[in-house]
């Protein structure tokens, strides 16, 4: 990392094969957003099907072609859409996109480093991500259709190519894509951990790091520890699919043909999958909570309440997330005793989560709230985190899970607590750090409109789903017309679809604002939100090495907002303590 930033850049080295962390962050952001938009369009399509099952719809045939002949969606395509929607949203938007963007952008800027520990590995991480995105998308154009066994790809459905059309080439591409994705995620994660541990500027002790850094640090640790387990699960699956092994298969007859496999167990896959799958929830959620902590503190003009408790709960959540995975498997046929153990650990996770929620509320209390669009989305996140977290108490309880497992109650729960919270966190992050990324401001008024329509639609989509679930409606049903007991639910489904379609259209406002502001937005000033963290001491124009001169030294924590004895209501981290001033933490 030289301090000479005057080397020439051409288009390729600047925008394509950049090793500058800020550019890589933007690459992650744009790729992730593209994947998110595709996944959102998919959800709008299958919601259309659910509101009017079997009725011809020209929109469907426009998007799906032969998969919706005469405008009626093929049931296999429905499952494919659900599967790819889940995969793109969970992995590509909310893991790769969210962590990739904000970890890359913020780590060097907030800890005071010229770049990531290894710029090359960082670029490599993006290119693996890009490659896996391309492969995942290419599976949409395979004749037999993309993977369609659900994003959890339980074998034997995913392991036996003849089990359903999507389990053929589509599934193979899914597995290849996910393997590359995991490589990307591991390269990124290791880099994040190393950078945070080694490259902090003088005075930036761990205890002075902004909460965003703590959250991203924990996220990276979770990823590095859990993703390898998914690789092994995926590899064993590839062996079962292609080389005749029997890790997950035993005594199967499919399409009239008896398979030779014996001795394996699909439950093994479930364990391996959810050993990643549950930490993955927090890999998605923690960066969003970190962003929110930062945005709420800044815009409340008030220190984050209980910094140490917040860090502690990040660690508690991180630790507990590794010992709760089997709560996805209460009715998988595993021992009821294991069910008891996992109920116990699962419900424990509510304690650190509650602490976080209370601390957010306490931060708002007696603040002087500045409602930037980012702040609104952060408040939205606190709301969805509370709503969705509470229903987790139902699902984590093994006895209750028996009857709501795999119903729409689950869909409502995880979309609110994980999907919405993480998306709101991502939106908050984009609105907040847009000036840092592009040197311009996003339009505030459009931001307000975007927030209000989004939160109304988001709750409109996912809140009614709890009622569908309590009525016993299973998820991943192509239509609920096959059961008289679900006839009453049609009007709830219509409400959900109305809000889902509106929500999808509303995001165009955001997209417009985003693209417009990149080119024509108001020019940003150095510290538009009057924030304390180090990234706002860098110049507006993007330069290699982040600071034109020396890296600033840090003297205080990130949350000296409205500190008595100071004229301004914020004191950036690089301002030395006054002689009579004591450190706040």
């Amino acid at each position, binding site marked *: 990392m030289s301090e000479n930033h005057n080397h020439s850049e051409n288009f390729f080295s600047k925008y394509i094969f950049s090793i500058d962390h800020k550019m890589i962050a933007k690459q992650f952001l744009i790729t992730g957003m593209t994947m998110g938009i595709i996944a959102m369009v998919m959800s709008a399509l299958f919601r259309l099907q659910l509101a009017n099952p079997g009725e011809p719809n020209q929109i469907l045939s426009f998007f799906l072609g032969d998969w919706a002949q005469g405008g009626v969606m093929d049931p296999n395509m429905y499952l494919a859409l659900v599967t790819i929607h889940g995969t793109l949203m969970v992995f590509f938007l909310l893991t790769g996109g969210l962590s990739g963007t904000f970890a890359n952008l913020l780590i060097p800027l907030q800890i005071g480093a010229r770049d990531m520990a290894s710029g090359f590995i960082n670029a490599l991480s993006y290119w693996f991500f890009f490659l896996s995105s391309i492969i995942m998308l290419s599976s949409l154009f395979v004749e037999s259709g993309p993977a369609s066994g659900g994003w959890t790809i339980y074998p034997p459905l995913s392991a036996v190519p003849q089990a359903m059309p999507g389990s053929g080439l589509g599934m193979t591409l899914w597995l290849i894509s996910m393997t590359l994705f995991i490589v990307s995620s591991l390269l990124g994660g290791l880099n994040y951990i190393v950078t945070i541990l080694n490259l902090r500027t003088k005075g930036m002790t761990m205890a002075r790091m902004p909460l965003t850094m703590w959250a991203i640090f924990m996220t990276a640790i979770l990823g590095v520890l859990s993703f390898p387990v998914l690789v092994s699960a995926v590899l064993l699956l590839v062996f079962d699919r292609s080389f005749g092994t029997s890790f997950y298969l035993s005594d199967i007859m499919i399409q009239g043909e008896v398979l030779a496999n014996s001795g394996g167990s699909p439950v093994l896959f479930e364990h391996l999958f959810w050993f990643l799958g549950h930490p993955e929830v927090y890999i998605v959620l923690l960066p969003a909570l970190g962003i929110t902590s930062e945005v709420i503190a800044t815009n409340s003009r008030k220190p984050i309440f209980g910094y140490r408790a917040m860090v502690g709960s990040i660690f508690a959540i991180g630790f507990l997330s590794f010992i709760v995975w089997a709560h996805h498997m209460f009715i998988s046929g595993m021992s009821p005793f294991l069910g008891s153990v996992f109920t116990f650990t699962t419900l424990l996770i509510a304690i650190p989560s509650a602490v976080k929620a209370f601390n957010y509320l306490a931060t708002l209390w007696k603040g002087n709230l500045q409602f930037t669009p980012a702040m609104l989305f952060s408040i939205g996140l606190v709301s969805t985190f509370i709503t969705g977290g509470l229903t987790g108490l139902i699902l984590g309880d093994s006895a209750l899970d028996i009857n709501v497992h795999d119903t729409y109650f689950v869909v409502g729960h995880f979309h609110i607590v994980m999907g919405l919270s993480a998306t709101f966190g991502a939106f908050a992050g984009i609105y907040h750090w847009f000036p840092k990324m592009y040197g311009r401001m996003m339009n505030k008024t459009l931001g307000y409109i975007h927030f209000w329509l989004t939160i109304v639609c988001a709750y409109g989509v996912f809140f*009614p789903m709890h009622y569908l679930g309590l009525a016993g409606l299973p998820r991943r049903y192509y239509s609920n017309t096959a059961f008289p007991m679900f006839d009453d639910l049609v009007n709830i489904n219509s409400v959900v679809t109305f809000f889902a379609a509106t929500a999808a259209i509303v995001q165009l406002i955001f997209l417009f604002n985003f693209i417009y502001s990149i080119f024509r937005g108001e020019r940003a000033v150095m510290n538009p939100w009057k924030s304390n963290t180090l990234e706002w001491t860098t110049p507006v124009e993007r330069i290699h090495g982040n600071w034109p001169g020396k890296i600033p030294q840090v003297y205080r924590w990130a949350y000296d907002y409205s500190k008595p004895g100071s004229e301004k209501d914020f004191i950036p981290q690089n301002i030395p303590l006054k002689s009579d001033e004591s450190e706040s933490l």
Partner: protein
Amino acid sequence: MINFLILISLIVVLITLSQIIRIFEISNKIKNSRESDITYKDNDRQGKLLLTFGFLFIASFFLMNAKWTKSLLPISASEHGHEIDLLMNISLGLIIIVFLILQPVLFYFSYKYRGVKNRKALFITHNNKAEIIWTIIPGIVLTVLIIYGLQTWSKVMDRSNIDDALVIEVYGRQFDWTARYAGEDNFLGNANVRFISDANILGVISNDSYKSQIFNINKKIDKLKNQISGEKNYIKKNQLSKRYEKMISKKLRFSTLKEKTPKDLLKAADDDIVVREIHLPVNKKIHMKFRAQDVIHSAYMPHFRVQMNCVPGMNTDFVFRPTLTTEEMRKEVKNEDFDYVLLCNKVCGGAHYNMQIKIIVESEEKFNQWISGQTKFALSYLN
């Protein structure tokens, strides 16, 4: 043409939007302020909107409850289901209370402390007392929930008193269900996927099904033998003899499978009854066992609060006692056409959404009458 028009109107919308933004920006320039700056007017307006939203959010929650509660599942039709429902109601009540406290607090705080001129936020970094309180209170509540939940769970999963339970097997495959009753001995015969044939869709192993399988294989072996002796082409002959060897080893596998099955289990299969509709005697303990043929299915009986995955190569089970007959439930839900149903709740392929089997709960006499009219497994090989 329509596509073209849509495209044109989209472009017009985009141009209009950007022009409107320009106007805002220019007017801001005239006022010498920046569009992105948060004014006190903004804070006031957004704060009030947040409060309004919070209010409407809570109101719509009550509205949804009023409108949709009647669409939810009716009272439990099984004994353990009442325990689950009680726990469910207590938990739901608890989370609704917390929801109704925290959401209003969030939106009220947002409104109350919206930024105003000349006010400085309170500088407070932490408060150990408050933080200990809001760690301990959830801790206590959760301890209660955990203990209560685990008690219910162990009651539901209790397998200690099931000797007198009626044994029924439910078998899932793409995309239908089949049930097997254990018959007079209340003991299910063994089954293996290799024994599946048109006459034996569950692959039950019995003397008859073994004989029938061996008979078919022998037929094929004889045919192959004839073909081999008549074939002159060396390559074809080679292929045929390979198939012949395969058949021989298949025959051997059948024999080992049969030999491994204890004699009385072979017998136990004879009085099994395979049906396409589940009948349950009311108030009798049912020990339901689950198997699957091809992929994971999940047997979900929402009215009985029963769900268990059916996993290929593995046996799972659930014990419950139905307490309301179909007739009684019809009166309960005021619907003459109501029927209990077992549906698939684990994605299993294209027709997953329509994989169901009807359940009829009836008095023990009616049940006995029904079951005595069904064909025993051994007898299905007679014709």
